[in-house]
């Protein structure tokens, strides 16, 4: 559905994105992840036809964004970083205006607006002036605006920014529900958001893609060790027992508990649990520590590991 190849964008001397290539299948939801200034917004602006790349090609539904912009734009719903709303318009009038701009057939507009209002929980404010809405509500109008013509492709730049926790969950569910019929790319700094909504994650740093995989794929690729959290009643002298297990790479002691890094093998795993139980230190808690997306993210974007993908 979306094909990006060798996309590069320079702002003067600043290289915002450098030779990015990826593709998104129809019905997929892809999370775009990266620290501030990584080039997420820039990539999205190019896909939506807002901005031309310095070089490279972006295609949506087989149409080149720059050779056939109208065909591409008809198929895209876009939520920019700042919701593009007119503060002097009523919510409903605004959504109708957007639907018309997006060339929605006029007999479908009323229905489309109604559904967009419902999906984003805006029905009760549809007669309010957008300028008088709170920031979160304005963000929701921005999301409604992207959905109103039920586009094949949705490009959402930080969709849940400024929403309250309940809304965040609702909007994430909404986005998840779009999978299958709609193709979605969303960018975020909020890592749980990606794990919650996206099948696939693209991590971008300093304008380059550093990793591209499912969350499970990423976490298994990220390390050849497992981590365990061990809490015992009598931690004194416990250290020696852990050290005796072959396959222990390292461990840390803090707050009466140990964090043990172990070789990724079931043998060492079994051995460790056996030693812990037999040590007589009084086992209180023993569990595997998941590699979090935070860990992966920090590892990929703060050190020069790169090239994992």
């Amino acid at each position, binding site marked *: 559905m979306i094909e990006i190849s060798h996309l590069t964008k320079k*702002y003067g001397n600043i290289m915002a994105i450098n030779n990015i290539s990826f593709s998104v299948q129809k019905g997929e939801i892809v999370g775009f992840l990266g620290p501030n200034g990584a080039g997420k917004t820039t990539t999205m602006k190019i896909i*939506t*036809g*807002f*901005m*031309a790349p310095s070089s490279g090609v972006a295609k949506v539904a087989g149409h080149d964004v720059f050779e056939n*912009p*109208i*065909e591409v*734009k*008809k198929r*895209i719903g*876009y939520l*920019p970083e*700042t*919701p*593009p*709303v*007119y*503060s*002097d*318009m009523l919510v409903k009038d605004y959504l109708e*205006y*957007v639907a*018309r*701009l*997006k*060339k929605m057939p006029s007999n479908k507009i009323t229905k489309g607006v109604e559904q967009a209002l419902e999906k984003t929980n805006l029905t009760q404010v549809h007669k309010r002036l957008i300028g008088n809405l709170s920031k979160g509500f304005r963000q929701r109008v921005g999301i409604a*605006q992207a959905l109103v013509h039920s586009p094949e492709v949705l490009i959402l730049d930080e969709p849940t920014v400024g929403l309250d926790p309940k809304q965040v969950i609702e909007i994430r569910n909404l986005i998840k529900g779009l999978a299958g019929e709609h193709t979605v790319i969303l960018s975020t700094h909020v890592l749980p958001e990606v794990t919650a909504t996206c099948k696939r994650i693209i991590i971008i740093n300093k304008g380059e893609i550093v990793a591209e995989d499912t969350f499970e794929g990423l976490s298994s690729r990220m390390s050849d060790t497992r981590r365990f959290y061990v809490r015992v009643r009598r931690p004194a002298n416990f250290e020696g027992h852990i050290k005796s297990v072959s396959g222990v790479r390292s461990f840390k002691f803090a707050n009466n508990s140990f964090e043990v890094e172990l070789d990724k093998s079931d043998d060492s795993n079994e051995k460790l649990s056996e030693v812990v139980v037999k040590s007589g230190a009084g086992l209180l808690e023993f569990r595997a520590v998941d590699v979090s997306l935070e860990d992966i993210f920090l590892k990929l974007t703060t050190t020069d590991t790169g090239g994992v993908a």
Partner: protein
Amino acid sequence: MMGALIIARKDYRSFFNSAVAYVITALFIFLMSWMFFQILSTYASRSFMMMMQGGGAPNMNLNEYVFAPHFGNVNVVLLIMIPALTMRLLSEEKKSRTMDLLMTSPITSTEIVVGKILAGCFLTWTILAFLSIYPLSTKLFAQFDKGPIITSFIGLALLSGVYVSMGVFASSLTENAIIAYFVAFVISLFFWVIGWASASMDGPVAQAVFNHLSIVSHFSDFAKGMINTSGIIYYLSLIVFFGFLTQRSLESSRWR
């Protein structure tokens, strides 16, 4: 061109949803009424004097002594007023980031520009329509020729189109409405005074060229009751030219 109409309709409506349009219209009518009354009373006292001196009915022409200067005044006021109506048309879209919506909608930048110019034109024409009260009320107590009034309105409608397209262009250059106002005012004023250069030109050809470039010299023909074809063509080409510059200015933002 559907996109242009959608944009024009929305902008025209939002003008009238805000107090600005009403304030500007009210001030415009107040100012024009005061000026018209001054012209009319000068005319009345002068024709009274002529009647006393020469005897008989005055043969001073209302078209020449009242309506021609009146429409000249309208022209000056439009020069000052139209930049205020157009200054926010594009600058505000940039400032509030709604330009992102327009530029990612399935419409061309030409449609955006045409929509903005139409919105500005419809608005100024609506305000101009109020000017019909002066000839209509004068008609109640005096005789004059309708022709020059009609051609003056045609001239004003075209000329305000020229000011609007200059204003829309200025508005595309900046996010700041005040800057857009002054840029629009200076461009419009320049096309007034460009004719002054003809006085200092040697050859008759150069004189004619500068005279032709002036937007006011064409308007005086309209005010005299003439449909000036070369004037119409000049005004339309100015509208298209500034529309084209605006379209380039919008497109250039894609390449920055």
